């Protein structure tokens, strides 16, 4: 077995275990930490397949900003020190998760069949940048408007205190 394949299986296992930990634990902060770990695993998988910019962007934004936002929210609302907030819907949730998994797996298998991913050349960031500012410049500017909308929305909501 080639080294990248071994690395893939290790990282995939790590990501799957952290995600399971995220949904199965009863402590909210542990859940957030598990989410961060599984996102780092996903970022490592991106890097393994050559998309190093996307992988590092995932760490920088998702792990470094979004999950920090979640943790701030958790720390600010005291859900971490209250008694466990849980309900009885775990079996139903498990069924739904299984159904989603089957749908996604069916979709992936039917579109890709048994084709294997070959570890090719690492995707050059220069090409990504070039594409972003020539072919996809309008979605790029739309992203800035979206960010502005999110910003203004958060400020408007926050001012009600």
């Amino acid at each position, binding site marked *: 077995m080639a080294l990248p394949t071994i690395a893939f299986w290790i990282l995939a296992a790590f990501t799957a275990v952290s995600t399971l930990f995220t949904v199965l634990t009863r402590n909210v*902060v542990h859940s957030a930490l598990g989410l961060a770990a599984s996102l780092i695993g996903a970022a490592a998988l991106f890097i393994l397949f050559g998309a190093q910019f996307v992988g590092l962007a995932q760490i920088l934004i998702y792990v470094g900003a979004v999950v920090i936002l979640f*943790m701030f929210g958790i720390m600010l609302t005291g859900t971490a020190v209250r008694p466990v907030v849980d309900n009885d819907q775990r079996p139903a949730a498990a069924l739904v998760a299984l159904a989603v998994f089957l749908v996604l797996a069916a979709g992936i298998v039917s579109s890709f069949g048994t084709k294997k991913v070959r570890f090719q050349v690492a995707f050059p960031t220069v090409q990504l940048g070039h594409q972003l500012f020539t072919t996809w410049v309008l979605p790029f500017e739309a992203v800035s408007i979206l960010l502005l909308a999110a910003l203004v929305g958060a400020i408007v909501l926050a001012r009600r205190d």
Partner: protein
Amino acid sequence: MDWLDVVIILVKVVVCFLLLNLLLAVVVWAERKVIADMQSRIGPNRAGPYGLLQSIADGLKLFTKEDIFPLSADRIVYPIAPIISAVPAFLAFTVVPFGNMLSIGHRHITLQIADINVGLLFFLAMGSIAVYGVALAGWSSGSKYPLIGAVRSSAQMISYEIAMGLSVIPVVLYAGTLSTRGIVLAQQHMWFIGAQIPSFLIYLIAGVAECNRAPFDLPEAETELVAGFHTEYSGIKFMLFFMAEYMHIVTISAIAVTLFFGGWMGPHPNFLVPLWGVLWFLGKTAAFVFLFYWVRASFPRLRYDQLMNVGWKFLIPIGMAWIPISAAVHIFDIRRVVLVGAGVIVGIIVLSLVLPTKKPEVLTEEEAKTTA
């Protein structure tokens, strides 16, 4: 990837790791001696000649301290928070180039652990993860003051991360690459400090704030919140936090040298090729670490709202404004002199942070007696 690559990786990692630990011991000792000298006292001088073994003595002492595990602390996160803090601090150093290539036979070995193509982004990503160690440590201690200290500390770190990210963009504009080795090589004609003075100043201020160092150390000052997020930590757990903090200082200094001061490039007599570069690199990094100590000994602590004001209302707008200016000068082929001039002006604006606004009054002896 053959076995020789693996051997080279292992040798690089082990050598680097040992050197970093040694460097940490020296940096801690040097800080105490330098700040002591600035405060007209001696500093450690008992453990070994000139107190050189003080750091080792402190490390050994921490091994013999009891493990205080607060009763209300989280059983899983509390012990692993120091490791979460230490790992990104050391990993950020992998992209720092110590010197030029070492050529053995027909193998060219770059003198950095990993010459990643997007190295600068990797460095910033590790800085992002460093916030986790702080936030988790404060929360998992199970006590209110570490929690407040951790939340304040994390909010400070994330505010200055934006400033740091914005400040390195103009350097990338001129270098044309995100790889740290590429950025150093792009400075062969002139170091980037010439054209990018405001970027450098913003990077330095943001770097000092990222490390929670004075004058931005309100969240961990003794008079404020005991020790902030690491109040409830004792022994080796505290040692890991301590190491992570000083490792951040060294890494930020090293990246400052790489981005703005030419990395390993020194004046011409290039004998003992890679070693000459390494010595120059270490010397320049040492100068920056000294700057960290100097700043700590000189400036009063910033209040928290002043700290956030500087981050959001001062550094980010200037950083955002400087990027199009740099880009415009480059793309329109305007002479770099214009950029240097504009840089000096903006640099003075940034430095106005630290300049006093009013001349302090000098009272004569009678005035002092009557007004006191």
